[in-house]
């Protein structure tokens, strides 16, 4: 047998803001890096994102939020993943996030926070170094 493992990444935008420029750039960048990217679309609540992540067996969930509701929304996704027995899924986030919120996000179980201006390659490298197919 010859396993052919591919990284599966689910990208979601929880909450009500519709600024999807960033997440779409990342989706294309990740695809071009050879990942399989599942995009959930806008205006999804944490439960919808978590269910999709589980059904898709995502190794990585990437979330973007520019509305200021990130602490709650990101935290909910991690919490619900854990409740559903999928706490091993890596969660990374980006958006308009004050640096002072980073410790709280990390404490909530978010692995990495990417700020505006991060090159795609930096994110791709981070993923390759930190996430393996589950």
């Amino acid at each position, binding site marked *: 047998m010859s396993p052919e493992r591919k990284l599966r990444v689910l990208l979601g935008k929880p*909450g*009500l*803001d*519709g*600024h*999807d*420029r960033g997440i*779409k*750039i990342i*989706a*294309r*960048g990740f695809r071009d890096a050879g990942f399989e990217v599942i*995009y959930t*679309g*806008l*205006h999804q*609540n944490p439960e919808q994102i978590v269910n999709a992540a589980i059904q898709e067996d995502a190794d990585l969930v990437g979330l973007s939020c520019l*509305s*200021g*509701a990130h*602490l*709650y*929304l990101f935290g909910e996704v991690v919490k619900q993943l854990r409740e559903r027995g999928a706490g091993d899924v890596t969660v990374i986030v980006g958006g*308009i*996030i*004050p*640096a*002072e919120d980073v410790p709280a996000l990390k404490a909530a179980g978010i692995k990495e926070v990417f*700020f*505006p*201006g991060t*090159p*795609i*390659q930096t994110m791709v490298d981070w993923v390759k170094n930190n996430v393996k197919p589950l």
Partner: protein
Amino acid sequence: MFDKKTLDHSQEGSSRRQAAENDHHTGHPAEKPAAGNPPNSYATVSNLPIKPLYTPADIKDQDFAQDIGFPGEYPFTRGVQATGYRGRLWTFRMFSGFGTAHDTNQRWHQLLRDGETGLSTAFDFPTLMGYDSDSPRATAEVGKCGVAIDTLADMQTLTGGIPLDKVTTSMTINPPASVLWAMYLVAAEKQGVPWDKVGGTIQNDMLKEFIAQKTFMCPPEPSIRLISDTVEFGTKYVPKFNTISISGYHIREAGATAVQELAFTIADGIAYVQDVIDRKKMDVDSFAPRLSFFFNSHIDFFEEIAKLRAGRRIWARIMQERFHAKNPRSLWMRFHTQTAGCSLTAQQPYNNIVRTTTEALAAVLAGTQSLHTNSLDEVFALPSDFAVNVALRTQQIIAEETGVINTIDPLAGSYFVEALTKEMEEKTLEYIEKIDKLGGMLSAIDRGYPQMELSNASYEYQKRIDSGERGVVGVNRYKTEEAPLTGLLKINEKVHEEQIKNLKHIKRVRDNRQVLKCLLEIKLACRSDKNVMPFVIEAVKAFASEQEICDVYRDVYGEYRDPGYF
């Protein structure tokens, strides 16, 4: 535009310059490369190639009277006002709103004391999307990105102590624009200000939402219908109000090039004008003078100036040739400008002041009617008081110290600026033609055409930055280790509770039978071709909440969902 001697002369000069450049590339010692990082390619931020030198030859086909002309005269390339900024300075309008209506009202009073001359409202996401503060979808979003408005009571608090006959207010609101506008009009009425004295702007531009910003509620077709209702109502009863602010700002922020921003915005404008004419059988000159525009001023100084100048010329021609407008005011492209949020960086945030200044200057040199300057910390959060103040002062310095306002359209006649203006115009017209071929903007959106154009442009742009082809100071050039910015604005988590409490109270004390009756009437109006506005105004007066009214829209028209075009 020039005689043969001048053109010959230009030609010779260009050849001499080319020879000098060739020498330079072959290692001629005369010209040393400048310090720092020279760009890898000489192109605008939109990747439009720029020539090393512009001469009369580059604008020889332009006709002074037809293409450039005078301010206040067709085709308005040089501005819509004959008197430029001597007649009236642009409006200093700072976008603001956060927390409760009370919080925002306080900041507004502060801004007016500081010399701001117009108000501009940022609403929170639940309000923008037509949800009340007590909706489960509003969790953690109430008051975060703007002010939360649920009912007329909130609107009255928001405008408390502000003379609505003297100060104009711009409201960045789209799917529920009819509702918020109704609240504003009723609030004015309760202040004793008649509607014909109330001025301001509702953004009310849904097409750019489908294209770029993605704050949507109902599908495009009924969304347009609601917009035409507001245009009709405004024309009849609120003649000083701009009922649509046709916006390129968000299109640009979503990754468009300068040309795409201009082209899609104008194509949106065409769709609105056409719909009002077709649906309402209104004369174009009766409503077109109240259409206003809203553009982005990005970091590429001359490209932005050229874009805005070209925009005025294109719009004037379209209004005259396509819609046969006769009133000169119908031909005016009046616009508000905001500096580019997307040009700001999280790295070395104080540099953002310089970016904003440059962008603001471009907007002023292009003759904007109104300006918002971004605050240096907007990449992290809503702006702090300090940052807002610096941004406002930036405008004041430009207006009062730099002298750029002394003469009208000072860059006119520049070989480069006029050539670039023309190029912007031609490229924009190509796009507009393409959209016409697709059956107009609604049909183009349905096919995902503008959405995909943006998605491609933004990805290409990111790749140019990532590869270092395009320099961004602090991001891919001159990087430094730095401490995070502190003193950011924090939204009090109590806001949510307070909003819910107030809303509950109102729902208890109002006449619920009256509310239901009003909502039913809105529903009937939605199903017919009656204008919904009078019914929305009645509902608002009865303290129907924003969501209650929007739920009627959603119920009748259905909900639009993100098609997720890449």
